[in-house]
């Protein structure tokens, strides 16, 4: 079976002429993610995490190397082909305040994947189903609201509902919970897992928090300065971290509690 995503010797560098190297450059990335696999990409800011997601959906092109998605070489695709590929994947953003069009109703936003893939008239009851499933009930009422009237948590639920409607085979989640409160993180993480299990989709979950990565992923890829420094099953990696960067991330995520001074 073709893997959902396949990176071979991928290199990304920005603004070659500039002296100060830009962040997010990637070097020698080799990564294969099968359908149904849940992979967390972990690293500090500037490690190149987001670039991985952008490469996978063709928003960025590699400087060298090859990125294949569902077996198709991204560099060679026509715009039409790229759009068809994108109908099969879905990107979920960090910032729920920006990722929803403020001029549309929630129902229209959730229906967008269908409208895009099958034409502007296509729609159906799935919008209400999706809204109910993410806990935005009564769905009929939420469908008519404008995103401006929703809280951050509710907006991220709308984003997940949109993903449910899209029925993606590849889910790219770029720090989807980092702007959310503790009590909502688990909610959103669980919904993502449900979405992933339903379509037996591949999930790329980008985060800087290993504790969160543990909740959603069965494999963790640690990035440091644009290179993959560790790529192992979650529990192995957490119990015996090999690379110093992994150990650092682990210590930080653990919040080693301080000795109380009394």
């Amino acid at each position: 079976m073709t893997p959902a995503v396949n990176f071979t010797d991928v290199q990304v560098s920005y603004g070659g002429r500039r002296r100060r190297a830009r962040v997010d450059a990637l070097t020698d990335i080799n990564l294969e993610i099968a359908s149904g696999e849940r992979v967390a990409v972990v690293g500090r800011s500037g490690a190149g995490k987001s670039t991985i997601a952008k490469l996978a959906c063709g928003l960025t092109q590699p400087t060298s190397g090859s990125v294949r998605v569902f077996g198709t070489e991204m560099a060679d695709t026509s715009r039409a082909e790229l759009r068809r590929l994108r109908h099969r994947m879905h990107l979920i953003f960090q910032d729920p305040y920006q990722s929803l069009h403020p001029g549309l109703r929630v129902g229209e936003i959730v229906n967008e994947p269908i409208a895009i893939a099958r034409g502007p008239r296509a729609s159906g009851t799935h919008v209400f189903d999706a809204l109910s499933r993410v806990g935005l009930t009564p769905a009929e009422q939420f469908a008519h609201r404008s995103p401006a009237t929703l809280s951050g948590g509710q907006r991220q639920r709308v984003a997940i509902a949109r993903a449910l409607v899209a029925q993606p085979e590849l889910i790219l989640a770029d720090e989807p919970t980092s702007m959310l409160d503790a009590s909502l993180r688990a909610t959103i993480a669980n919904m993502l897992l449900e979405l992933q299990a339903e379509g037996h989709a591949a999930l790329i979950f980008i985060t800087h928090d290993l504790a969160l990565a543990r909740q959603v992923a069965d494999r963790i890829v640690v990035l440091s300065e644009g290179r993959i420094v560790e790529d192992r099953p979650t529990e192995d990696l957490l119990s015996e971290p090999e690379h110093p960067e992994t150990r650092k991330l682990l210590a930080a995520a653990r919040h080693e509690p301080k000795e109380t001074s009394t």
Partner: protein
Amino acid sequence: MNRYARIFGQYLLVVAAAVVLNFALPRLAPGGPIEYLAPPADGTVSEVEREEILARYDLEGSTGDQFVSYMENLVNGDLGTSIRESRPVVEVIGDRVLWSLLLVGTAVIVSSVLGVMLGFAAGWRRGSRRDASILSGVLAVDALPAFFVGLMLLLVFSVKLGWFPVYGAVSAEEMDGFARVLDIGRRLVLPATTLTLVGLGSVFVVARSAMISETGEDYVFMARAKGLDEKGVRRHARRNALLPVSTVSLLGFSTLVGTATIVETVFSYPGLGSLGFAAVRSRDYPLLQGVFILFALVAIAVNLANDLLYPLLDPRVRQAGSSENDS
């Protein structure tokens, strides 16, 4: 270095375009100068006379030849001979340049300073009573057409009250030293006021909205949070709000140069605008071309100044175009 080289390159191209355009426009126009200056021999003008006129205005020979001699003259600073005044265009323009500079310069400086002050005062507290009153006042003034303001000022202060002379930039009679300066000043007041009122609006609007958007910035909040008094907080907001304003007042310069045409006409002020206008009315094509190329060069120079000055004001642009940080 690279950046500057690129900018200069771009501007050279633009200057070249302006020069070519200046050559081409009159020749493209229907009923262009040739027909006007030298109508085909029909009895009133003989063939010989026609040849003579064409030679005098460099209109003989093929278009290519004409262009070559046009360029030669241009490089030598020769803009041809004015039909209206029968003397070199350079000389005619030279007589007027200083008056124009005086008028437009005064108006640009006063309207920028006033516009920025009013704009900042209004924008600092958006929606306050002060904001509302300044805003509606300036908008109303801004809506007055230049010629209307000019005519009314002329009517009230010169004709009715007789405080200021009706026309001209300097009186014909000989005066010395201080008296002359005073005379020039007196004659400058009304046209400069008109032009200032006209130019005020655009600077004001930009200054106000720049101030409004800066007061919402986090660093202004931080300035207050770290204990600065209101004066200190304002200083931060002002510094940043000046950036967009600088561009506008530079661009406003050339808008005012244009509007000056009207003001100069109303007040019979001997500037370049009224000269251009006179050239248009009397179909003095060499003069018109001269004025056009001068204005084009001014516009380009203003742009260049803006491109070169802006990085000095904004450290973010200064670093060789480093792109904005995401994340």
